[in-house]
């Protein structure tokens, strides 16, 4: 009984440690690769997917290409203010996409559509990381 309690406590400790480390990595790791992926997906995947599944929506699809390219430009320039701005725009587009899919009721048709929610969370996480970096740089 005592032995199993000890094992349980150890396992709990390990899980807590892993979760803390994952949280640290999520909050402070380099976000450029994520930004590039999100920007590429926004410029290419987003317009195509929404066109095929939702229909022609020029007020969302055309600016999405520009927003994706703008974020790629910002990441390449390494200007932190530009990156924060571009990441916010990207987050907004993914949020709009996620809400459009919700409006259409696709989330109850297949789990693969939940990827839009994942992308929204990912872009929000990326935005938070860059903002933290900006605050860190400003505070010295």
């Amino acid at each position, binding site marked *: 009984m005592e032995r199993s309690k000890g094992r349980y406590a150890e396992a709990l400790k390990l899980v807590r440690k892993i979760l803390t480390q994952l949280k640290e990595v999520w909050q402070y790791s380099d976000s450029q690769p994520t930004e590039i992926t999100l920007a590429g997906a926004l410029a290419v995947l987003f317009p195509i997917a929404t066109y095929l599944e939702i229909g022609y929506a020029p007020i969302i699809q055309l600016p999405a290409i520009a927003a994706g390219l703008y974020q790629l430009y910002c990441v390449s320039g390494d200007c932190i203010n530009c990156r924060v701005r571009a990441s916010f725009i990207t987050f*907004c587009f993914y949020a709009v996409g996620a809400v*459009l899919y919700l409006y259409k009721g696709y989330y109850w048709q297949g789990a693969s559509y939940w990827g839009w929610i994942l992308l929204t969370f990912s872009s*929000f996480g990326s935005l938070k990381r860059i903002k933290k970096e900006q605050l860190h740089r400003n505070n010295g």
Partner: protein
Amino acid sequence: MDNTTQIVITAITLLGSAGIWKYAEARLRVKAELKKEEKSASDTVLYRDDLKKRVEEMDVALKEANKELLALTEKVAKLETENTFLRREIDILKSK
């Protein structure tokens, strides 16, 4: 989906996203400020600042001491020269 619906959904989502981000941004700012205050009040930072101050003071003192040393060396050189001349004069006077 018609254009009006698209515009309405986009506008509402944009406003919602902006609101969420404003809230998150404010929280991040407050956290960063707290962290900065904690950092500036910690013992390690105070000790480091004290050390920096002491090093600066010692640097100033060292420069002043160097100046004084230089002035003293100059005086000693002058006195040595005077002394040499005086000895010579004493020798001349003695020989007379």
